[in-house]
């Protein structure tokens, strides 16, 4: 099966001359549908940079990123915005949510941008918030939710717009291990039952244990790769 995302010889350099940092150095990687992949490696090895490039948040110094068979490095700003909106879900380490929007509104936001009709939006939001265990908390603002609940809303927001892939950068790093484990179980469940593709960057052994594929980065290069039966 073809890849959801494919990076070809992607490099990202920061700075220049003496201060040149090769955050990523010629990384080629394909993510197949249904993967539950963890990118691991020491701090500064380029995990976040790789996720950013895969999600079109920045342009690589060279190389290409293909998403849904399109080279996103060639897209205009607006095309790329719409592409991210329709094809990629993001979950960050913390502060994912817009503080002035309620849990339901945060989830609804992307669908508003997509032009999904109101009735459908509501239905999908409520179903998804229930799915992540937040039924009855739809009207709460982020500051009225615990860290774990906020991350669940972030997962719901990423899921509800029905992207091809969810890129999650250390989603459990700010949570205690029980809450992190619950969140991970939930995402694992979404992966197995709804077939959503997940790519994580993480230091968290729990994610590594559950991952179907482990990619180790070192100094901006793929150091080793291993696959595991789910």
């Amino acid at each position, binding site marked *: 099966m073809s890849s959801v995302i494919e990076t070809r010889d992607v490099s990202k350099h920061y700075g220049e001359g003496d201060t040149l940092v090769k955050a990523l150095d010629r990384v080629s990687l394909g993510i197949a549908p249904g993967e539950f992949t963890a990118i691991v490696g020491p701090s500064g090895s380029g995990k*976040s940079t790789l996720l950013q490039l895969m999600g079109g*948040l920045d342009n690589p110094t060279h190389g290409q990123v293909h998403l849904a068979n399109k080279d996103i490095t060639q897209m205009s700003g607006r095309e790329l*915005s719409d592409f991210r*909106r329709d094809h990629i879900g993001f979950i*960050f*380490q913390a502060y994912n949510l*817009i503080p002035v929007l309620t849990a339901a509104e945060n989830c609804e936001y992307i669908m508003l*941008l997509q032009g999904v009709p109101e009735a459908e939006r509501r239905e999908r939001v409520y179903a998804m918030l229930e799915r992540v265990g937040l039924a009855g908390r739809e009207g709460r603002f982020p500051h009225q939710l615990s860290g774990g609940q906020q991350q669940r809303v972030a997962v719901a927001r990423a899921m509800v717009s029905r992207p091809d892939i969810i890129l999650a*950068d250390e989603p459990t790093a700010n949570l205690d291990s029980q809450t992190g484990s619950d969140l991970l179980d939930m995402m694992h469940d979404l992966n197995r039952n709804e077939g959503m593709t997940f790519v994580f960057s993480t230091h968290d052994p729990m994610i590594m244990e559950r991952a179907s594929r482990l990619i180790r980065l070192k100094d901006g290069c793929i150091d080793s790769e291993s696959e595991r039966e789910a």
Partner: protein
Amino acid sequence: MGITGRLALRNLARNRRRTLLTAMIISLSLTALMFTDALIQGMTDTMVRSATRLYSGDAQIHHRDFLARQDESRVIDDPEAVLEQLAREPEVAGFAARTLAFGMVSSAANNRAVQVVGIDPEAEAGVSKIAGAMIAGDYLSEAGPVTQLLIGDRLAELLEADLGDRIVVSVNNQLSEAAEQQLFRVSGIFHLNARAMDENLAFIRLPEAQSMMGLDGAVHEIAFNLTSASLATDTSLGLWQRLSNDRWVAQGWTELMPQLATMLQLTNSSTIIAGIVLFILAGLGVINGLFMSIYERTYEFGVLLAIGTRRRQLFKLIMTEGLILALGAIVIGLILGVLLITWSASVGIDYGSMEVSGVALAEIIRPQHRFMQYSALPFWVLVMTLVACIYPAIHAARIVPAKALHKSL
């Protein structure tokens, strides 16, 4: 409400103190602009009225050479015809003929060079404020003795003269070309609250002045008021032509008092400059307030962009925040402005006996409402605020999501 409006409103409500402070900058600028305009209006009006309605009149008719040469032989020798024409002009509210003589007044103690003015008491009362400015004795009357003389309080002090005291007035007789002296008695003392007038004017009755000067019914000046003071600056009125001929000329106060006209123009331009400075300061305040709120939200904007918000939509969000802020602030500014102008107009601002370029602000100044304070001024404040928003909004729209999210990603 659309998502942009909802986000904008809630974002403004987020840091209430900063929103309020930024709004205050806008509101108070508007209030200050409104009040300044109202004050200038009131002041101009008062100044023009003090300058014209105290004594000179809105306009005057002289022999064409009289003012330039200060030559007392250049007279209007047929005043009746001019006065009849004035009576026919609908825009003319009152008129009075005068003789003007450079003369000398002497008391037992002192003498002073002054302008001796011959007036027709009844007609004069319809043009100038002398009749109402008497602080001692009485205004001139037809019935009274020929020796009636009015002087200002400052002149009375300089002459050490009091009511009933004898004063010798001497002027030039145009026929004999010699000095003509006559004895008068101080019958009234006036206070116009304008130094130049209270010190340098002496009034006697017109017939006595004419006979002393040997003028035989001729006058030097015919002063008149218009139904509205602003008509005096309207050069398109037909009456200027009708009241002028090859010998005499009718002129409004802007021509008669070019210094005052220039000064009012200067006041206007300095108001405009002060307004522009205020605009720039307020604009910088708005830019600063918005930038602070944008820097605080850089990460959040990174998230919004990452999940698919277009840059244009982010720009629109910041502009909407600015628009809501501006509209709210303008409403507050308008209310404050109306209250301040209405209150200060009812109380009045007393400049005491301050004189501006020789003209006394004799009356209490009452700031005036006018339409542009409620239309053009708020409109420009709105434009200023939106212009000030553009820079921060562009800045927000240009955020690179990867950089903004660097802390997490």
